[in-house]
């Protein structure tokens, strides 16, 4: 289980150094797969049936459906594959490393959970969430905002699955559907912004301030 957690952290690094939209989306898909695997292993070890369904849902929705949709939108937009980095990849790695340290320090000092496994899981989930936020702030294209949101959501799921072992089933289903609808809407928005402004550089939207 620790291995899978490490892989998830590695994927955050991959997401941060990607310069193109498709590579970001692929990294996200891979991370979601690892998350599904984590859920599956939890399900096998605790034997709870709900977690099987959760693992399946994570895989189907976040590793297959959503990346597919995002790639389709990117193809339609023809805005170029360039992600629009505000911070170059090396510096981004350094930032994410710092965020990981912060997450780990927070987990240890504040949570005081029993067992190093749980602490590590919490630290990882926090760093994933912070990476998602980082993506939203320092990537200029609108798709990055969407992916950032999904990564934050991944982090939340990780915390839930690794720490609590089981989120209430309805809550998970509800969250899944929320995420699905959100991505749909965000996708539509990105498409519309592109039609109107012929680009999805969100930073240029600051001319709309008033």
């Amino acid at each position, binding site marked *: 289980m620790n291995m899978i957690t490490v892989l998830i952290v590695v994927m955050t690094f991959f997401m941060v150094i990607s310069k193109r939209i498709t590579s970001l989306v692929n990294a996200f898909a891979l991370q979601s797969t690892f998350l599904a695997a984590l859920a599956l292993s939890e399900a096998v070890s605790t034997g709870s049936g709900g977690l099987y369904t959760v693992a399946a849902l994570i895989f189907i929705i976040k590793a297959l459906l959503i990346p597919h949709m995002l790639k389709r939108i990117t193809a339609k937009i023809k805005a170029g594959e360039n992600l629009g980095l*505000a911070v170059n990849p090396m510096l981004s790695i350094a930032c994410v490393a710092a965020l990981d340290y*912060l*997450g780990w*320090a*927070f987990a240890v*000092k*504040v949570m005081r959970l029993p067992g190093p496994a749980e602490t590590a899981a919490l630290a990882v989930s*926090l760093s994933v969430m*912070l990476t998602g*936020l*980082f993506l*939203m*702030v*320092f990537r*200029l294209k609108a798709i990055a*905002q969407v992916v950032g949101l999904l990564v934050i959501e991944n982090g939340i799921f990780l915390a839930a699955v690794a720490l609590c072992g089981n989120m209430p089933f309805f809550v998970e289903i509800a969250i899944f559907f929320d995420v699905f609808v959100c991505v749909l809407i965000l996708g539509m928005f990105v498409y519309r912004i592109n039609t109107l402004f012929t680009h999805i550089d*969100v*930073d240029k*939207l*600051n*001319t*709309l*301030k008033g």
Partner: protein
Amino acid sequence: MNFLKPHYSLLLDPFSLFFLCVILLISSVSAVYAYGYVKDEYSPKKTVLAGLLFTAFMLSMAAVVTTGNALVFLVFWEIMSLVSYFLVVFETEQKRSVNAGAIYIIMTHIGTAFIAAAFVLLYKQAGSFDLVAMKTAALTMPPAAKNLIFVFLFIGFGTKAGVVPLHLWLPYAHPQAPSFVSSVMSGVMIKIAIYGLVRFVFFVLGVNALWWGNLVLFFAALSCLVGVIYALMEHDLKKLLAYHSVENIGIILLGVGASMVFIKLNLPVLAVLALSAGLYHLLNHAVFKSLLFLCAGSVYRSTRLRDMEKMGGLIKLMPWTAAFFLFGALAISAIPPLNGFVSEWLTLQAFFAGAMQCPAVGTKAAMGVYAAVLALTGGLAAACFVKAFGITFLAIPRSEDVKKAREAPFSMKAAMAFLALLTLSLGVFAGPVLGVISKVSAFAAGSCGMLVPRADFSSGVYTITPSLSGPAALSPAFLLLLLVTAAGAGAALVFVLARRRKVTAVPTWGCGYYELDARTEYTSTAFSKPFRLAFSFFLMPYRRTEKINESHYHIKSFRYELYNTYIFKRYLYQFGLKMTLRAARSLKRLQAGSIHLYIAYIFLTVLALMIFSGM
């Protein structure tokens, strides 16, 4: 977290039932009226929407008065406000609707915020949202908390009721809504605020301090005078009626406030009398105000006009509407033997009895002052309705649109006739009505923990005798009899002595000038000019003139505009608005427009929280 499972407790005591009756009465009559109003006006889709919204409105109001749980109260209160907002802006083709709706929704939400704050404070003390639990907790609450809760409740419910200075939305929202909605809003919705105030102050908190009653009385008197003075200045018929709602809420609150004072001074029978006067006026106002709004709607429907200065002569073209409006005008001017007279008389009797029985000289003098204020507003209201009825219906039409007016269809006439008949019946059968209302108010007054002796203020079906130590009685039926006898004697005299007289129709005397037309008639602005000058210290009228000269001696055109200064709007609201906008503009520097910057704000906050939470 036990408030997450609210069990809807139904509260059907006499007080709730009274308000439920008022709601159902006015709503059903307005619905009958609405059937005729929308028949050829709205498309079928719009009619269905109007019907749904109207029903939702009525049901939410009914739910507000029958719930025993403060959270459910708040939920339905909010639903009621939202549905009425949609009804106000229902005819969205006019730009005025949007403005009116905006002012209404903002102010009603400010009021709801205060009510919610009061409920939260009560919940903290009581641990539950149930009214009965709050009542038990109120017995041991510190007085400072109770005072704060009372102030919040008064501001919150006062905004919805239209108490001055929180009345700004009323003259915007009520005229703009379609008439069958205005009648329910003005007749019922603002009374629900009175319900809330009395329910939470009498039942839950218990009247604790003398200054509560004095505060209510002061703002009630202020509302009376301000409402009627602004109404006198209006020449938009529905806006005039809206300002009169402000005035009548003041009259109702005079009764309620006096009752609060009497409860604190431990005068139970007087408290019941004062509260009965207030509730009687509440019922009467619901009836005659909706009648007036329905008539105004009938006028609007056939002439498309709301401005009185363009109307005239409608009594010949719309005789039934004019007759029903006359009933409403007589009732609201407190003219015997109709119902408005009975409730104003009762309020005056309550003040008189208070002046007799209160121990302190200051209170006695205050009772006299409030009685004088009530008498003054009664006189001013009569003047205003002479103006409203006279300019709208009498003499000759002042514009072309009015000449094409035709009478309202049957369902509208039926609704108005029913209400007009009700104004007469509630006056003539004052005995049983007062009997029922005094039981309701005895229940309300008794819920403060006071022992209320059995006090029946009526003797017989036609007479009421509220006086507690003397025989003063009022019998509107008997008065009607006297009036009819005396008038009949006059008619007999004319018949006997002047049987052979001829009655000829001649043009109006114009000092020898026979081409009189509508321009020589009296106007509404002219009618209210003496009042404008007498109250100019409050109204601060100013004029704007523009003269275009063709030559030194010859004026080509002269433009004259007369304005009143609305001091509450200018010095309270616009000032507050300016301050708020200034603060908002200074915050604008934080918002550079970049989404990344905003998310960065969130990011930084999260980081800061994480770093500093460990310390």
